[in-house]
């Protein structure tokens, strides 16, 4: 292995690339060549580093200099000053205080995180299995196959306290146990990489930045539950993720870490990628399985749960990408390591995508049980522009709003539930005083209305009715009783929808009414939007409004 003097890690996550990261990288390579530094500087393309708002970004080791907002024209200066003369280019670095330029590990955004799932993202070259192995990769699988029975593996996961990261937080060990105990000649392991929540991209980051951790996690799962076939159901919108995962699968196969008789054991495990059509509801596990089977992606009744009757009617373990990414660490470092992170009932970390009115946005991984305040102010750096925090929507489009009075509540499944929010996919949108809660609720409800599969009445008809009422309110046409109508209808939708989409769709509305009722009342009674967002009049466009109802009392008979 060659020894380089300098390692330049360039973030090749989606957002850095779309901000022009590739052009910078090309310029950097040219400059390095020009100065004959090819033998001294190694450029590594990594997965998403998380601080997406700072991109395109690069970390230069050994010392960990963090360069942000890079443009091609910066390449020359970095090479000539930093790489040749050892002088850091301060104007391209993150400045904490006047004249203070911290290294990566001193930047609070990074320093306050605890990385398990994203441990390799931004650190290794995702397209190189050797780098993954160098960072303890596949030791968990080796340990499982070499030293443990499948029951041991299940027990270890149970002890870790890991819960599913796909949204519902179902205890992972229990799910594995149920699948392992289910009777069936054929079993499957499925990874849910549908990530339909438009604001979340942690699964994508793992797939793009550390695909081997998913492969290892799924192989361990296959061993534990007795499955020899796995599927990764990935949305079509993630071509880079699919490409990297495909490459990683090939590499793992060649290395004997996937395929027949893995690591010389009697365990065989095949892995295939299935590409999804992109509907949000296809992320719901039963809809996802129908979709893999080639049927309309629609939720089906539960029970039977996939653990007993899943893909093609066979016992199937289905977990989220982030859930699987935890597995190798739990096995290699032991459940006690994992168990020490987080709090009783919610062990380990959760990745959130921090967005909205906060200074540093991006992907963060934090121990569960952390407070919202710590996330927003300590990691995110607070609200920009001297504005006042108003609320944070957690859990994606069907999440709930948390007001400032609740900022100290620890973030875990149970507390979020009592606040009317959910962990969901881990979307976290911070809103300052300029946001209107009616408008926010309407915005997110619009998403779920559009994504409802239409199978069950409460979700199909009910969410649409809620949307109509919100629309009315935001146009200044709210009526007395609308709030109560939203509340009672919302409760019925939560209570009677067939799948999680409908059951959680009213959350943004109900939670915002709960904490910001006065704002709704101002819209309805005073016809004003306190935040000044809603137009409060009906905007008439040239577009013909869709016709509603019947034009006339019909006297038609069936002809």
């Amino acid at each position: 292995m060659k020894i380089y003097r300098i390692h330049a890690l360039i973030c090749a996550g989606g957002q850095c690339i779309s901000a022009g990261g590739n052009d910078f990288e090309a310029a950097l390579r040219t400059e390095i060549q020009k100065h004959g530094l090819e033998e001294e500087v190694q450029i590594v393309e990594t997965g998403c580093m998380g601080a997406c708002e700072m991109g395109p970004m690069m970390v230069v080791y050994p010392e960990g200099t963090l360069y942000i907002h890079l443009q091609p024209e910066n390449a020359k200066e970095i090479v000539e000053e930093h790489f040749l003369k050892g002088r850091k280019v301060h104007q391209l670095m993150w400045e904490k205080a006047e004249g203070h330029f911290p290294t990566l590990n001193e930047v609070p955004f990074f320093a306050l995180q605890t990385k398990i799932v994203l441990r390799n993202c931004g650190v290794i070259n995702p397209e190189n299995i050797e780098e993954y192995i160098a960072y303890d990769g596949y030791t968990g699988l080796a340990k499982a196959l070499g030293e443990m029975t499948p029951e041991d593996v299940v027990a270890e996961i149970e002890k870790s306290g890991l819960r599913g990261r796909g949204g519902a937080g179902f205890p992972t060990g229990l799910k594995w146990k149920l699948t392992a105990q289910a009777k069936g000649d054929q079993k499957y392991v499925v990874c849910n990489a549908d990530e339909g929540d438009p604001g979340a991209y942690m699964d994508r980051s793992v797939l793009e930045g550390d695909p081997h951790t998913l492969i290892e996690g799924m192989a361990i799962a296959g061993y534990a539950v007795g499955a020899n076939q796995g599927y990764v159901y990935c949305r079509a919108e993630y071509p880079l993720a699919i490409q990297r995962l495909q490459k990683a699968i090939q590499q793992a196969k060649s290395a004997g870490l996937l395929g027949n008789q893995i690591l010389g054991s009697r365990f065989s495990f095949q892995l295939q990628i299935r590409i999804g059509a992109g509907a949000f509801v296809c992320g719901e596990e039963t809809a996802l399985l129908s979709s893999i089977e080639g049927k309309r992606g629609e939720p089906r009744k539960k029970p039977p749960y996939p653990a007993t009757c899943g893909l093609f009617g066979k016992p199937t373990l289905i977990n989220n990408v982030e859930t699987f990414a935890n597995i190798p660490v739990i096995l290699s470092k032991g459940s006690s390591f994992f168990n020490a992170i987080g709090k009783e009932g919610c062990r380990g970390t959760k990745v959130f995508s921090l967005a909205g009115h906060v200074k540093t946005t991006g992907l963060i991984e934090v121990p569960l049980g952390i407070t919202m305040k710590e996330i927003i102010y300590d990691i995110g750096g607070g609200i920009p522009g001297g504005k006042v925090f108003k609320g944070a929507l957690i859990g994606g489009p069907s999440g709930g709003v948390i007001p400032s009075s609740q900022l100290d509540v620890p973030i875990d499944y149970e507390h979020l539930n009592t606040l009317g929010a959910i962990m969901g996919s881990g979307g976290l949108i911070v809103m300052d005083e300029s946001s209107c809660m009616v408008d926010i609720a309407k915005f997110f409800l619009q998403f779920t209305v559009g994504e409802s599969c239409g199978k069950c009445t409460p979700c199909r008809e009910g969410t649409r009715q809620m949307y109509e009422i919100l629309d009315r309110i935001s146009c200044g046409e709210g009526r007395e009783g609308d709030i109560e109508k939203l509340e009672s209808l919302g409760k019925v939708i939560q209570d009677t929808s067939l799948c999680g989409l409908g059951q959680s769709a009213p959350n943004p509305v109900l939670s915002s009414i709960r904490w910001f009722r006065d704002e709704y009342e101002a819209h309805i009674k005073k016809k004003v939007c306190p935040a000044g967002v809603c137009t409060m009049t009906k905007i008439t466009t040239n577009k013909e409004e869709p016709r509603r109802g019947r034009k006339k009392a019909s006297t038609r008979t069936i002809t």
Partner: protein
Amino acid sequence: MENKTVNIKINGNDYTVDGSLTILKACRQAGISIPTLCYMENICEEGSCGICVVEVAKSHTLQRACITQVYDGMEIQTNTSRVRQARKTILELILANHPQDCLNCAASEICELRKISYDLGIDETPFEPTKDLDLPLDTTSPAIVRDLNKCILCRRCVKECEIVQSVNVIEIAGRGINSKVSCFMDKGLGESYCTNCGQCIKVCPVGALTEKNDVDRVWDYLADPKKHVVVQTAPAVRVALGEEFGMPVGSLVTGKMAAGVRRLGFDGVFDTDFAADLTILEEGTEFIGRLTKVLNGESAHLPLITSCSPGWIKFIEHFFPKCLPNVSSCKSPQQMFGAVTKTYYAQQKNLDPRDVICVSVMPCTAKKYECLRPEMDDAFDHWKDKLMLKDEDHFQDVDVAITTRELGRMMKEVGIDFEHLPEESFDSPLGESTGAAVIFGATGGVMEAALRTVYEVVTGQALPKVELEIVRGMKGIRTADIPMVSADGKEIIAKVAIASGLGNARVLLEEVSNGTSPYHFIEIMACPGGCLNGGGQPISNDPNVCEKRAAALYSQDEAITIRKSHDNPEIKKIYENYFEKPNSHLAHELLHTSYVERDLYELEKEDN
């Protein structure tokens, strides 16, 4: 594990029930009714409507009774305010996007949505429509009208078409509020491979699916003094029509039916049963012909498959066109009757065939399609040269086919007090029939009727027992071996099979298609249970409706002295005076037909 009993609580009371039951079934056993809309046992268990929700202790959401299995220790509440509020809200949501024109809705009387809304005390929905409720009707089908405005997306029709009929021509398309029941490529039902069986109509809880209403055309003919309008009533109509007037399921109303139609003003009140007897002679002869050939080592297409059911015919034309040579060339009784009316009958009565109108009352929606088939105008071709008919004189053998339900509506319209009508008989000559013809209305009936005649022709002896119990019943597929000894002492075992419902038909057809069918003779009816459960029959929620109607048919068979088709004196006469003998040249011209090889997307092909 599945059959273990479990202890559950329903509304505070303890019950021990079979652990494989759903909450719905357990509650029904306990005498507690739970409303449902989308549920059909074993057919539609999707849980889509949400009306049946109940409270289950420790579940944080309400549970659907129809798809949730009971477990030991389950505590169910069916009647809390939370449950009632949820059901009411769901109904209100449905009603918001449902045109409430109950006054002129064809399904008004049987509408389950209306009934549940009434039962749950809905007076007005607080919600406004969110959809365009003035979509045009789909009237492309000759048999079925679809009104998507009324559709409540329960999916019962989709499942019926898929699970029971295996046709799969309708499906859910689109998502969310835009989802709808759609035909392949969003075409009209009439432009698809729909078989017109009408089973979807029978399961629609609202008026979104109805038969094409041809009542007005019948009134117009009846009002035209130039026309001689005759009516034929199919075997299954007489065991169902009474239900339209509140009589119990399975009431046999042959005499009242004849009296009723007569009061509508028809010039001849006849019985399709007459043509059923004719069918037996034609088809029986065809069967014996093919069987003899095969027994003599010659080639012939066996099994012979019956052709009375037009939904079935369209099904095989689309799905198994290569098997068409196995289908009997006999027309259905409706069409034989039409052809005979406009030839033999017209001649006897000295009527210009152009002035004879043949109306049929059928348990079937597919008959509306059948009478329109271009192959079904043999009477016109028959007269064309003789009477020097021009193209604009063209007439169909059967002019209009209406369903049992439509006949009921006509009688109501003129205020016929059906229950108190006297018993009357059919007119002569096309009103005479046998017990064999009556049982055509039940699955297995054609087979039994045919065997009564075939056995006698082959063996020279009467069946040991005229009732062939072995081919009766409501099981979807039935088979039997019928041993016969021919007059010259040869032993023959006729292997027969009977299927009703197109899903079952498909099973037998797969065998015919791949050459493994062991049978000589197969009877197929498109509708499960046969014509008595046809798509045009009164819609009943009696779970034993098929058995009851069948019992009525068999009782009529027993009550008739002549029980074999070849003993029908009018049939003997028509052969003596007109057709000469079964399968004669004239019989082939008027009583037999041919079929069309179709593929599933024929109209797409035509478009291109």
